[in-house]
């Protein structure tokens, strides 16, 4: 019903566009100059269709449920029900009308449900009638009003601006909302667990917190030695470090090759190929790490008499490094390519060879941009989840041995939130605290990286 109505309104919109434009053409044919292109007349009418429709739909969505509820519950007034009971009755009525009620059906409720259904259908049809008549009236009014010298371009432009503004506002508000929910949950968490224990504690064992019976009162002392985040911060940076050890040299060298040595033809094929690496879903990297690289490392280690666990920091970090190569390679290629040719010419004309030119002129000139791309890579490494969850284990060991398993912030968030959880439980809130720390770290990295890159851009405008 709503869908049909919606389609109908969209069609009406197109029709009014068509009529608006047609009227503009008619005016034009009488040799009058228009104040805007004919399309604007069309758009103008379409807006006169869209805005009333939008307003009425929103009003309806806000008021219809309240009014229907009032009408239904008016039958039960003066019977001494409490507010809570009334709400329950209303919920039962709704459930019954949808055929989803499974309790005992009383005649009262049945009557209410029937009333509910009839009210809804009245509301729906009156909505359709009201919307359509108002739209037609407003479009007709606008159609009559537009003439050769009416302003249609400005309202259309303004409407577009408002629409675009609303879209960006929605994006920003969502971000702000997410950040705030992170902040509040984190604050709640630190009300139970002291900040000091979280930042400096060396035992991370959230499973322990899970044994608590929810009927028991919250006793902070039972969480000592449970939420010490040092092992997972260490694990996060350690795995990121391993990843960067793989990604920086390979990515940088391939970036330099692409920018300075590769012929146009090679570059044309090689660059997209490398960028395909960036398009592989991280889960795929994850099972590559868990099923191929991990066991492979274990086997090699065992044959050399080393004790390697199948889930090792090395496997996860190494594969993560491979995942990051295309970022560093592609970004540093861009940065190096944008070093002005005149600097290269200047260096060659002094008799410098290609490698001298790269080492002494191009690389220093591109360095800020390269650092920026590396920082972006690091922030990817720290935020990466799937590979770690699959390949580096979930036990938060405090270790610097790359052959043992460690865990990261992201992996622990997954561990905590998989399975049963209760909102307001310290264990669940710990995930928010971790998320907050992760957010802060990557935010700082991104800000620094973008600053550096921007500064570099300005230099070679």
């Amino acid at each position, binding site marked *: 019903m709503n869908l049909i109505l919606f389609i109908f309104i969209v069609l009406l919109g197109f029709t009014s566009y068509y009529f608006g434009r047609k009227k503009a053409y008619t005016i034009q044919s009488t040799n009058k100059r228009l104040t805007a292109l004919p399309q604007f007349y069309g758009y103008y009418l379409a807006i006169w269709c869209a805005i009333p429709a939008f307003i009425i739909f929103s009003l309806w969505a806000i008021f219809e449920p309240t009014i229907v509820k009032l009408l239904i519950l008016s039958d039960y007034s003066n019977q001494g029900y409490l507010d809570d009971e009334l709400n329950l009755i209303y919920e039962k009525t709704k459930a019954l009308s949808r055929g989803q009620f499974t309790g005992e059906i009383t005649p009262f409720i049945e009557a209410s449900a029937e009333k509910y259904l009839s009210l809804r259908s009245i509301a729906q049809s009156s909505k359709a009638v009201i919307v359509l008549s108002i739209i037609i009236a407003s479009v007709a009014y606008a159609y009559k009003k537009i003439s050769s010298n009416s302003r249609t371009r400005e309202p259309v432009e303004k409407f577009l601006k408002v629409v675009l503004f609303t879209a960006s506002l929605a994006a920003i508000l969502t971000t702000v909302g997410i950040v705030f929910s992170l902040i509040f949950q984190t604050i709640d968490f630190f009300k139970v667990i002291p900040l000091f224990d979280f930042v400096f504690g060396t035992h991370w064992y959230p499973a322990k917190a899970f044994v608590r019976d929810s009927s028991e009162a919250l006793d902070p002392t039972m969480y000592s030695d449970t939420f010490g985040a040092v092992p997972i911060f260490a694990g996060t940076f350690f795995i990121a470090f391993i990843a960067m050890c793989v990604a920086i040299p390979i990515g940088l060298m391939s970036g330099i090759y692409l920018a300075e040595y590769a012929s146009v033809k090679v570059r044309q094929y090689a660059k997209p190929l490398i960028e395909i690496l960036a398009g592989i879903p991280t889960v795929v990297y994850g099972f590559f790490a868990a099923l191929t690289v991990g066991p492979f490392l274990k086997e090699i280690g065992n044959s050399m008499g080393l004790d390697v666990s199948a889930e090792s920091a090395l496997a996860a970090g190494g594969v993560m490094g491979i995942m990051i190569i295309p970022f560093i390679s592609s970004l540093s290629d861009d940065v190096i390519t944008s070093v002005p040719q005149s600097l290269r010419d200047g260096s060659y004309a002094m*008799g410098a060879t290609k490698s001298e030119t790269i080492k002494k002129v191009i690389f220093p000139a591109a360095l800020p941009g390269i650092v920026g791309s590396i920082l972006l890579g690091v922030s990817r490494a720290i935020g990466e989840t799937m590979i770690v969850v699959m390949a580096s284990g979930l036990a938060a060991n405090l270790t610097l041995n790359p052959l043992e398993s460690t865990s990261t912030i992201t992996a622990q968030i997954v561990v905590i939130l998989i399975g049963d959880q209760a909102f307001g439980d310290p264990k669940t809130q710990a995930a928010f605290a971790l998320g907050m720390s992760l957010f802060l770290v990557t935010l700082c990295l991104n800000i620094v990286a973008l600053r550096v890159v921007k500064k570099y851009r300005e230099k070679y405008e």
Partner: protein
Amino acid sequence: MKKNGVKMIKINSKNVDVFYGKKQALFNINLDIEENQVTALIGPSGCGKSTFLRCLNRMNDVIDICRVKGQIIINDFDINDKSCDVVRLREKIGMVFQKPNPFPKTIYENISYGPTIHGMAQSKNEMDEIVETSLKKAALWEEVKDRLHEPGTGLSGGQQQRLCIARAISVKPEVILMDEPCSALDPIATAQIEELIDELKKDHTIIIVTHSMAQAARVSQNTGFFHLGELIEHGSTDKIFKNPENKKTQDYITGRFG
């Protein structure tokens, strides 16, 4: 300059053709450049002046699609020969570009760049000396001697161009190629550079591309006129400007076409 009454030829080009891909940019150029003189190359835009200049230090190697044919003989040696070492060649033949292009390094490092590459200084003192004499020769020393360790990109356009000239002469080249070195500068900076060119020709052979007839007349002893990839006429600047043999040269110099 004449030795025993004979003109000394520094560069001797024979039947030089240049192609960019399929398109031919220079046709059979035969041009001799006299030692310790300033030779100006003039001609309308796109006629191949820069292309010819870049042949002389093999800068066209940098452009993938560019092919050079013919002989260019410097010091009895064909630079297009396989046995020619580009690094040594460019040490001997310096170049200054149209737009000042100092490296994003300090003034000192800009000058010491070439000498370092070619291993010309054994000690810090020697390097300091090279930097100082190069800057003095480029008439920039007084202006920058207190800020040698500040970035070269922080200088004014005219200063940057003199820095680039100092950079070029730091390796004591025999020849200096200049491609419209004053086109980005104001008249005062231009006058300074022209004065400098006159000074430099004592020790160096100079070839300068310019769009300014007045500049060519002021600084050069010899002039070559290019048109559509051909060398139409060349000879002493006096002769080219006072009574050119070719009608096209005459028209170009008097500004009747461009």
